[in-house]
């Protein structure tokens, strides 16, 4: 009521008072937005600062040396870096075709009434906490790999030239292959949900034209849908890669925490995230702690770059579809 009276007396007064509150509200929300930026920047800076001792001490040898000797104080991160890259590569090799298959199934093949429930079930894979993946991997999946899959791989691929080296060694279940597969399962829902969304967004006239020309479902996918959604699919793959690189707990359970560089995928290894999770609370010297934080810095920077590429590609797709956000 006061506002109405005031407005009668002086037309500008309530407006300016409203503007003051408006200004305040905008400041609060803008500050919260700034905080998001600040946290991201502060995390990067804090990792760089925490890792400076390791970077100063070892220089480039930090990422080229595979020697990780806590007692002697020599830290080279080649093994965890290698393990991270290899497990993520295995994850993508599995997850990308499977995700595209799921997206195709959900947009073209499945009976309409089953699409919703199946899509939710696939998305629930992303909801299961990574520690559950880890426990299941350690107690169920690794023994399964050791008993059924790895002996077969060793017998059939272990003696072949070139690929043989990848599948040699004892079938112990714990190792890069098992970790890669578990990571792959975890990445599937992320890639599949983006792929399904963009497949659904392909303009109907494009698909209908292909159908009118007599194209089969496979030809529509390979010649219309995939070329049209290419940048978004690559974006989805990068998103999956970003997830796989930084995944910690599941990998920690099934990778074996070994600091030996081995070619064989069946051998235990380490990853950046797993090394930090396993060793940080035990790190008893400044150099040891700094080396682990330096690893976190590398991981953070690489995942930020990968995820930024993913986001850029997905944004491009959105613009192509003329969406506003």
């Amino acid at each position, binding site marked *: 009521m006061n506002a109405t009276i005031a407005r009668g007396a002086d037309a500008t007064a309530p407006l300016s008072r409203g503007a003051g509150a408006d200004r305040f509200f905008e400041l609060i929300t803008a500050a919260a937005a700034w905080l998001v930026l600040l946290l991201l920047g502060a995390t990067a800076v804090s990792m760089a600062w925490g890792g400076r001792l390791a970077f100063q001490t070892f220089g480039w040898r930090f990422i080229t040396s595979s020697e990780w000797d806590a007692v002697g104080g020599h830290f080279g991160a080649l093994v965890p870096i290698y393990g991270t890259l290899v497990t993520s590569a295995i994850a993508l090799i599995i997850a990308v075709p499977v995700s595209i298959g799921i997206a195709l199934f959900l947009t073209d093949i499945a009976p309409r009434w089953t699409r919703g429930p199946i899509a939710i079930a696939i998305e629930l894979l992303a909801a299961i906490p990574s520690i559950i993946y880890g426990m299941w991997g350690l107690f169920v999946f690794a023994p399964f790999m050791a008993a059924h899959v790895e002996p077969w791989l060793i017998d059939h691929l272990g003696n072949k030239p070139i690929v043989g080296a990848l599948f040699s060694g004892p079938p112990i279940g714990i190792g890069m292959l098992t970790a890669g597969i578990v990571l792959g399962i975890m990445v599937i829902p992320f890639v599949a949900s983006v792929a399904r969304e963009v497949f659904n967004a392909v303009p109907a006239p494009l698909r209908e034209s292909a159908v009118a020309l007599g194209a089969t479902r496979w030809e529509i996918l390979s010649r219309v849908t995939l070329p049209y959604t290419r940048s978004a699919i690559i974006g989805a793959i990068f998103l999956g890669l970003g997830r796989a690189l930084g995944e910690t707990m599941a990998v920690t359970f099934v990778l074996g925490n070994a600091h030996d560089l081995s070619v064989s995928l069946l051998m235990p290894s380490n990853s950046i995230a797993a090394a930090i999770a396993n060793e940080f609370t035990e790190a008893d010297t400044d150099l040891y702690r700094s080396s682990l934080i330096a690893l976190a810095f590398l991981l*953070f920077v690489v995942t930020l770059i990968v995820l930024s590429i993913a986001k850029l590609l997905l944004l491009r797709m959105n613009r192509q579809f003329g969406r506003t956000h």
Partner: protein
Amino acid sequence: MAVPVRRRAADITAFLFASAATAFGLLWLFWILWTTLKQGAAALTPELFTQMTPPPGTSGGLANALYGSAMMILLGVVVGAPVGVAAGTYLAEHGRHSRLAAVVSFLNDVLLSAPSIVIGLFVYELVVVTAGHFSGYAGALALAMILLPIVVRTTEESLRLVPDQMREAGFALGLPRWRVTSQIIYKAALSAILTGILLGIARIAGETAPLLFTALNNQFWSANLDGPLANLPVVIFQYAMSPYDEWHTLAWAGAFVLTTFVLILNLLVRLLARKGTYR
């Protein structure tokens, strides 16, 4: 006119591949859930909720871990959710066309998928090193940092789904922008925003990596957030990695409780989202 055999074969292969891929994806879900259900149901006892985490070789429960987790999640939401809603409001309303909003919106999505273990290390450097000891507060802060980008994203999306006509109607009544936002737009988007927060809770409930170096763990009952605090994910981690059978059983029981909680929240979110006016 028949489609040539080769093209038809390619089509059938694609059909089979897509079906197999979906079956492959669902297989893991059911395998993991079945394992958790079977192992967890066998380990479920009333003592789980009344007794403390035991030393090796004796029986016990997870009461302290459940309490610690609940406290940290609660505090994480109290800290993270308002900031997230405010930032999301800026992105969708006040800063809609600003450069800051574009940058934040972009980087928020990056932060959304950033490795949570790095966030744990950041909070370690920021809080644990400064305070000189591990604490439940540090754990809650790490969880808040993980919750934040989720709430920012869902808030921004829910606000954008509110039709502009509602804003215009508010302005036409002479309402200042902040009242339009807080009294009209928030009301319209309320269920969607709450859904986003629930989704965030489901996510942080299972987060382990950021708690390893912040809340650490505590074998005993402790309601003191200013000291090391037991929590479900880290207990599961330690017990599962141990060589003791009793601890494995407890870890499975914990895994069962955690998975059930997270899945129910997720399904609830989907139910709410379907009911919501603007989804």
